[in-house]
């Protein structure tokens, strides 16, 4: 057994969706595995485990990160928000409603990560063009939708937040 084995552990304390969490974790555990397995926050998904598909996207200290590219021990002391927390707080309720109305999801597997990426874009750019939306979510793979409906839903949400047109 090499140095990355299960018996190398560390204690971590972090805030997940506003709750303080202290755990002993194997140092090799990825943040997304920690969230999914240890904390049972299964809304964050795994699609590639190498940072390409975006299914594992969560917010760490306000920034959208790939949960498969970060170790749980690196999140020691951090504030982590997952789709569960973002849903319960209502922080992205308008975006979720727009996705729902526009059917911007099919199987829903990419959706939590897609929403985190979209929310990040809307926070930084209140009036993105369709091309800007497409560029921003181009790290989030969706096999089902073909993206068009997702772009529509993000565009609609941005317009509604600016007070143009009704929210979807």
């Amino acid at each position: 057994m090499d140095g990355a084995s299960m018996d190398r552990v560390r204690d971590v304390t972090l805030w997940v969706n506003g709750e303080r969490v202290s755990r002993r974790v194997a140092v090799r555990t990825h943040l997304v595995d920690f969230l999914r397995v240890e904390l049972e926050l299964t809304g964050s998904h795994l699609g590639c485990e190498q940072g390409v598909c975006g299914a594992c996207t969560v917010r760490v200290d306000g920034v959208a990160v790939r949960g498969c590219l970060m170790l749980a021990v690196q999140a020691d002391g951090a504030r982590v928000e997952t789709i569960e927390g973002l849903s319960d707080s209502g922080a992205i309720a308008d975006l979720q409603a727009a996705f729902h109305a526009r059917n911007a999801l099919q199987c829903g597997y990419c959706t939590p990560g897609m929403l985190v990426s979209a929310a990040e874009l809307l926070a930084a750019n209140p009036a993105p063009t369709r091309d800007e939306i497409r560029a921003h979510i181009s790290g989030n793979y969706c096999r089902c939708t073909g993206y068009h409906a997702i772009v529509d839903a993000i565009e609609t949400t941005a317009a509604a937040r600016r007070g143009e047109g009704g929210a979807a």
Partner: protein
Amino acid sequence: MSADETGLTFLDRPNSYIGRSVPRPNARRLLQGRGIYVDDLKLPRMAHVAFLRSPYPHARIRGIDTAAAKAAPGVFAVVTGAEMARVCTPWVGVLGHFKGLKSAPQYPLAIDRACWAGEAICAVVAASRAEAEDAVALLAADLEELPAAVEMERALDPDETVIHPDLGDNLAFERLLDVGEVDAAFRDAAVVVEETFQVGRHTGVCLEPRAILADWDAGEEKLTVHHSFQAPHMMQDILCKHLGLPEASVRVVCKDVGGSFGIKVHIYPDEMATVALSLMLKRPVKFVADRLESFTSDIHARDHRVKGRMAFAADGTILAAEIDDLTGIGPYSVYPRTSAVEANQVVNLVGGPYRHRNYRARARVVFQNKTPMCQYRAVGHPIAVMVTEGLVDLGAARLDIDPVEIRRRNVIPDDAHPSTAASGIRFEQLSHQAALARLVEMMDYPALRAEQAALRARGIHRGIGLATFVEITNPSAAFYGVGGARISSQDGCTLRLNPQGGVVAAIGVTEQGQGTEAIVAQVVATAVGVPMEQVRVVTGDTDATPYGGGTWASRGAGIGGEAAWQAGKALRQNVLVVAGAILQADPASLDLRGGRVVDAATGTERMPLAELGRIAYFRPDTLPPGLQPEFVVTRHYVPKDYPFAFTNGVQAAWVEVDPDTGFVRLLRHWCVEDCGTVLNPQLVDEQIRGGIVQGIGAALFEECRYDRTGQFLNATMADYLVPMAAEMPDIAVAHVVSPTLSSEIGAKGAGEAGTAGAPAAVINAINDALRPLGARVTSQPASPEVILRALGRV
């Protein structure tokens, strides 16, 4: 659609949900991360399996030393192929209606020989997946690498390795078809065009990898299998057969599925092994493929080389077509649907939209030491459409006829149906002419041509590509059942009215994101006469739903929808009989609307459904003697008039090619299709869009690349390119509506259309852009390298 006994169609129902873009009720929890995919489940005593997979395309397994792995931390068991064969019997992927199709027995874990790089040869079960993987690394397998048959072009050469010596050669299946006077038609033609087309091997890349959690309860003697899968009843039947269990002991549950596209409808050795391990260890065992395992063990698709030619009269009339298709399917024909289906569909579908009566085809399906190949979204269609539409464009260019015009002259006219294509496939009602007219108008074809010419003058190379197609949907038993496959083409829907007026609908078709549950709820709410919020739909559970085929080949809406409609009508009738007794009215004078019993003529409310439910369930003593309310009804449906409900459509792509870099920019994409009655326009449109992008992926990016020795070179998501948002165009979708008369609701499928036509449209558009430069691409994916080679620049 046909009218029911009252002379009304469902469109006449008051408060109809049919044809409305209602959002999917079950999507909300997915948006909140509350979906339950297989890997989200945790059961008491659950163990995890990891597999040792062959690193060689072809190898003899001399032995596996398992001692170190067995001693590793957290390990519960290490199981070899021979040990597992005592629990799970092998299978052979052949069907009776593919005459001559042969394959070899396949085991959950290879025993003597591994036949592709990635085939599982030993299983380790441990407390966590990480520990199982750690222990797999400690397995010492003594493997002798054998010569591999890799290239499909060489598979039948006399000196090539025969993968299964017992079968005699590497030819799995061959089909020949010769219709009309092909030789005479080619001899008399004004123009004959000829081309060889290549469609690369690619795969589904579902974002959720394959996953299965098997739970054998030795006390209850009950196996519960949670499965990311499209056809739970089929899986149940197969588990019974190969594990020797009675049907009552096996339950298959398919809750949320993170994309499937035909990938999750086949029998995979590692999944069968996982179930067998649960039986052996008497505890829940979970297997979730990682991405490398997905790439090397999910079925692959396409990988066809088609030589085609087409004969034209001087006015552009297509006189005849001929194709020779060769496809490599890996070392086994996949169970139970077989790997002969795609080539068979290519033969059936080439030339499908057109009127010619002369057609000759040969398809050969060969074994090779690569990942097994089988049915993936739009099976055969993209190949047939690329070949047909590529040849039509070649003919148009030779005859100097506009691509729209040559199609207009050749499609089977809308008033000529029912009709039969040269290959023998039968069409009830298609709408090629109307669809083409709608497409031309939608894209403003003349203006686009003018823009193309103007930009050309400035050295900008844009192209327009068209693709007309037919699409197989609503398969009857002719697809699999007649060949002996125990795959249901019928589906049932059971409805139960509850006391408060809610309706529970359990149905055999399944949901993988297409919106199955939403359209079932729409149909049931409309048929029964209750608000849609009052309908709860249950799918994907063999213990809870009527027997059915699941969702594949675009059968959910057309077959499941009709079963739901018939069940809904029957339940309404049963409710009105009871209402009539309570209200002392003729049931025929009453109706159920918006959850209320009303006077049919005036719409005046007579009683709320909840009141009727209260009486029927809690005060049946007040009902007339002899009246027994029957508030559970089941209806089944299977298409019988035609083997398939063919649909049709046409797509167009507008692209720009940079001749210096070979890059293709997708500017716009249009699709007009005819899936009959549109139950939920938004859901249909999104099926089309998603399908188109999958087709674009095949056309431009996706390819499982192998080296000469049979090693898969790009089995990661960083190396295997998939369509991402930034490269994809906006996609306009429109419909022509020709309902099937085979059912009352008249819905046909829409799941394949996008993927069927998009590659041909994109390839034709690239060639339209390249034409003045004297270059032409004939292979997918049309990567920058392929385009630069075509241009002679590399």
